[in-house]
């Protein structure tokens, strides 16, 4: 068994706001195995983007990592044992610059704004290489161009057309693919993708998903998706983690979580998304709205919205426990949640 590429342990991040401290991420732990794709799913304000930015150490000045550890392990090609370990939270200066993009790259949310409007695509690649000390000196010119063009064709773009273009000359889907190629420039072993398909059209989304699948097969990097889109997770992830109020409340193999969810929130989310084949009556929305991260509810943070909440849920926050191999859930009522919610749904169904 090889060691995971990324191990996040008890990570806590707070934002300082005028009204108080925003507890965006609370004691969050998970691993990304070598070559694995993990999806963090959750709604706006669940803290999932903060996790992604925290992993890259790109948090804004108002944010503070108050605890935990992020360990990254570089794997040496061909060997099953892990290479050197890096504690990401201790990195500084040059070490941090090396870690970003060489080890772990990110495709940011909203492809439309992530590229510099006054730079050509070729200059984006040159800048990235320069900033992270890749292919320095005289070799840079042709070698960089060769590698960039190969990546651009891998994301199904025509390098000749794109190379000298400005971002505004490309469509949203093309820009998103440029960003993916750019992220892979320094051969990172971990790719973080924040909402990679949001705001794109269906056919473009499909194209991006296929590009990502192909790249992963060819290059073998690990991926961490951050998304509210359950369909993206269902399509691309090996494991899925549901995030609520800054904590993982359920994590497991993608098929198991979608087939046998145990947490009432995960059950609710899956039932709230209409699919092409689902019947009208099978859809139910989750009542209420996400919690205020400054004044979190007591006990289980989901209890104000949970039909199964009892006195214990209000008092104590449940820990993540393993309910079947590889499937962890944080709920006091996991044993009977699915059954109980079924009868609850029948009672409240709008005719």
């Amino acid at each position, binding site marked *: 068994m090889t060691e995971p590429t990324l191990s996040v342990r008890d990570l806590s991040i707070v934002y300082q706001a005028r009204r108080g401290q925003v507890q965006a991420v609370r004691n969050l732990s998970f691993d990304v195995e070598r070559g694995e794709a993990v999806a963090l799913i959750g*709604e*706006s304000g669940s803290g999932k983007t903060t996790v992604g930015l925290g992993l890259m150490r790109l948090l804004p000045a108002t944010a503070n990592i108050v605890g935990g550890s992020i360990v990254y392990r570089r794997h040496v090609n061909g060997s099953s044992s892990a290479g050197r370990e890096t504690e990401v939270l201790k990195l500084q200066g040059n070490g941090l610059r090396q870690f970003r993009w060489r080890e772990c790259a990110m495709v940011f949310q909203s492809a439309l704004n992530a590229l510099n409007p006054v730079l050509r695509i070729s200059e984006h690649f040159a800048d990235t290489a320069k900033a992270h000390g890749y292919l320095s000196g005289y070799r840079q010119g042709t070698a960089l161009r060769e590698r960039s063009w190969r990546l651009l064709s891998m994301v*199904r773009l025509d390098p000749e057309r794109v190379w000298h273009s400005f971002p505004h000359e490309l*469509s949203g889907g093309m820009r998103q693919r440029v960003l993916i190629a750019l992220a892979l420039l320094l051969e990172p072993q971990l790719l973080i993708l924040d909402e990679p398909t949001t705001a794109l*059209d*269906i*056919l*473009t*989304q*499909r*194209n991006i*998903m*296929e590009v990502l699948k192909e790249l992963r097969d060819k290059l073998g990097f690990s991926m961490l998706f951050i998304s*509210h889109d*359950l*369909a*993206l*997770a*269902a*399509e691309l992830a090996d494991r899925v983690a549901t995030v609520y109020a800054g904590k993982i409340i359920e994590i497991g193999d*993608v*098929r198991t979580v*979608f*087939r046998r969810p145990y947490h009432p929130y995960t059950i*609710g*989310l*899956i039932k*709230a*998304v*209409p*699919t*092409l*084949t*689902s019947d*009208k009556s099978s*859809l*139910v*929305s*989750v*009542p209420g*709205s*996400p919690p205020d991260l400054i004044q979190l509810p007591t006990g289980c943070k989901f209890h104000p919205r949970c039909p199964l909440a009892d006195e214990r849920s209000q008092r104590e926050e449940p820990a993540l426990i393993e309910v079947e191999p590889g499937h962890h859930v944080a709920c006091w009522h996991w044993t009977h949640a699915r059954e109980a919610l079924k009868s609850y749904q029948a009672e409240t169904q*709008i005719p």
Partner: protein
Amino acid sequence: MSEPLITLEHVTRTFTVKGQTIKAVDDVNLTIPEGEMLCLVGESGCGKTTTGKMIAGLLPTSTGRILYRGKDIATIAGNDRKAYRLGVQMVHQDPYASLNPTQTIYDILAAPLQHHRFTRGESETKRRICQLLEIVDLTPPDDFLEKYPHQLSGGQRQRVSVARALTVLPTFIVADEAVSMVDVSIRISLLNMFARLKDEMGVGVLLITHDLALAKYFAWEGRIGVMYLGRLVEIGPAREVVEHPQHPYTQVLLSAIPEADPEATRAKQPIKLRSADMPSLLRVPSGCTFHPRCPVFAGEVCEKIVPPLKKADWGSEAACHLVQAHES
């Protein structure tokens, strides 16, 4: 048969961009009966939003007519004009931008009520506002009256937008991507709210969306229209369009949609397009505009002749030369 509420006759809308003319909407014909739940779906740039805006009277048509209860909205005057303006309301996509941040919910809802004299005096206005807030599930209403939009979540703001549209007792609401910016867990409750408006107040809704699964759910008893590059390429009963799509474009779209079910979505076989990129509106292909990408492209007829919408199987109408005309 009763008179249709809204009729679009050969509606075309062009825009001039840097001296070049683009056709955002091209010869759309549509009849909407009273109280219908209708969805327009398509990718960005297909003209669905422009169509919605023309129906709501926010954009004039370039050629063609839109009729409201049989009267052309471009020339409608007097009481009929007022009835149309009040009768068709729009709910915009972004609930963060469509509400005035300096006004309380009470102010936002009181303005149209008082301006159009639906209520007289403070106490009556307040009573009516509370009623409206209850209709859109913002309960208890007293908690919301003095709040400002920034104190509400996206879903709650969208409910306020709907309540505002309801102040003037409309017969039809155009909802442009009204649920795409709210969290997934509450989308369904917003859609259910629209369904209730129809059942209880007879309000018809045109939902503009890019999500076919959502469209099927929303227009369960109604219709779905699929648009591509300004043209309506297929329209029919919602479930039939999703389960038995007739137009190749609809088939491609449906095969491409990722589903929130790992088994189903990985078993899907997306239909391959002949070209992945959407043509620019500046250079719209000749004949059937889908022909350069169409998986069942059949040569000259597709390149030269614009296919009209015609009756196909399963109650749909499709604009494709290869769809067999259905004799009824």
